[in-house]
């Protein structure tokens, strides 16, 4: 049974127009693209105002006046478009940069260094294999040294070069492995078109 739900028809229209780009750029794709960008921006405003309410005004109302500070910092961002006082917005930006950097540098030592090093030196049930994987990590780190010319000179450059080839093997495998995940997504959209819209698939 072909669907009579307008929501499904609109969704199907956008599904087909987006797919059509793969074949050729066309006015319908352009229409879908602009609709998409506009919808996303509209949605961002809706969610933005909601978080302003949730994290800002509600907290101030509850008596936590400290939340006036981020609101003031936020207002400074609006100064960006003023030709003379644009620099005021740097105050808000600075807070964002500080937050971004702070959140990153505080977690990477544990998550990306300590835990990864631990993983690298954990030998597991098969010590020989453990040594192999540790060496793999070893050579890859060597590949990523920048200011140590000596490491990248013959004959010791065999380490970073081996690291490079191991990386290529890793990337090839990851590439092949992802094909399945990606195909699943397309299949999902086709199931939507064939079953939900056209009613062509059996149970």
């Amino acid at each position, binding site marked *: 049974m072909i669907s009579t739900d307008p929501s499904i028809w609109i969704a199907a229209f956008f599904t087909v127009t*987006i797919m059509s*780009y793969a074949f050729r*750029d066309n006015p319908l*794709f*352009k229409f879908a*693209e602009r609709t*998409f*960008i506009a*919808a*996303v*921006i509209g*949605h*961002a405003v809706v969610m933005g105002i909601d978080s302003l309410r949730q994290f800002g005004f509600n907290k101030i109302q509850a008596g936590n006046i400290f939340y006036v500070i981020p609101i003031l910092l936020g207002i400074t*961002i609006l100064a*960006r*478009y003023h030709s003379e006082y*644009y620099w005021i*917005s740097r105050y808000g*930006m600075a807070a*964002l*940069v500080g937050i*971004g*950097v702070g*959140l*990153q*540098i*505080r977690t990477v*030592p*544990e998550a990306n*260094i*300590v835990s990864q*090093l*631990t993983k*690298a*030196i*954990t*030998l597991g049930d098969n*010590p020989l294999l*453990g*040594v192999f994987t*540790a060496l793999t*990590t*070893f050579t890859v*780190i*060597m590949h*990523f*040294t*920048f*200011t*140590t*010319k000596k490491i*990248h000179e013959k004959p010791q450059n065999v380490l970073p070069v081996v690291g490079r080839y191991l*990386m*290529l093997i*890793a*990337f*090839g495998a*990851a*590439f092949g492995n*992802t094909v399945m995940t990606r195909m699943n997504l397309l299949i999902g959209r086709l199931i939507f078109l064939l079953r939900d819209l056209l009613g062509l698939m059996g149970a």
Partner: protein
Amino acid sequence: MIAEGMISSFVILILFFILLLVLIQQSKKGRKFEMKHLPGLDAIEEAVGRATEMGRPIVANPGLGSLRTGPVTIAGLSVVTYVSRIAARNGTKLIVPVADPEILPVVDEIVRTSYNLEGMSEDFDPDYQIRWLGNNQWSWTAGLQGIAEREQVAANIMIGSFAAEAMILAETFARVGAFQVGGLTNTYQIPFFVAACDYTLIGDEMLAAGAYLSNDPEQIATIATEDVFKIVFVGVIVVGVLLGLVGSDLMIKLLEM
């Protein structure tokens, strides 16, 4: 006191900071650190030159991240700064796509400054050059697909944070014949840039781009700091594995402190 299990990472962070300051001081006193060549970054200037000859635009893409994504985005913005300077100097058409509204004003300022500094401020055209494509990875990707095809982009420099759209972007720009330099830290997506771009800056290389392009000795001193730690970590791996082979988990215990 320091939270349980975080002593080792705190020590790493503090030691890194101290060594960084020491090496910056040394470079101020004249110690030189030289960086190995990163062909991907060296190729940018040539790519811009080719685009100029063809009269086709280049895209300098700082990725999906926001300022709160931190270093990856900051590195991406450094590359946009560099590319926009060259583009302004050569009179190349430049397009900078933006996803997150936080970096929209930053990109505006970066490009404007580049054109001012090169004395080309009348060439600055924010309507054409700066495109906000929505803070959703897919609206942004759709917008970029539109740009690739309609503007016949000649070079695509995408260095920043990229997610699942990496494959679409790399293929779409390859199909219009654009010369591509990619750079990202997201391990899931690196294979796609490696497969489809002319040059790819992998992980750390991409984060070093800002320092590399600046050619500023003090910034390169911070890269040397990284290298010292890399060699130490390589040592940790060797010692840890040797200890493991004789049945000791001392190193793991140390790391888990």
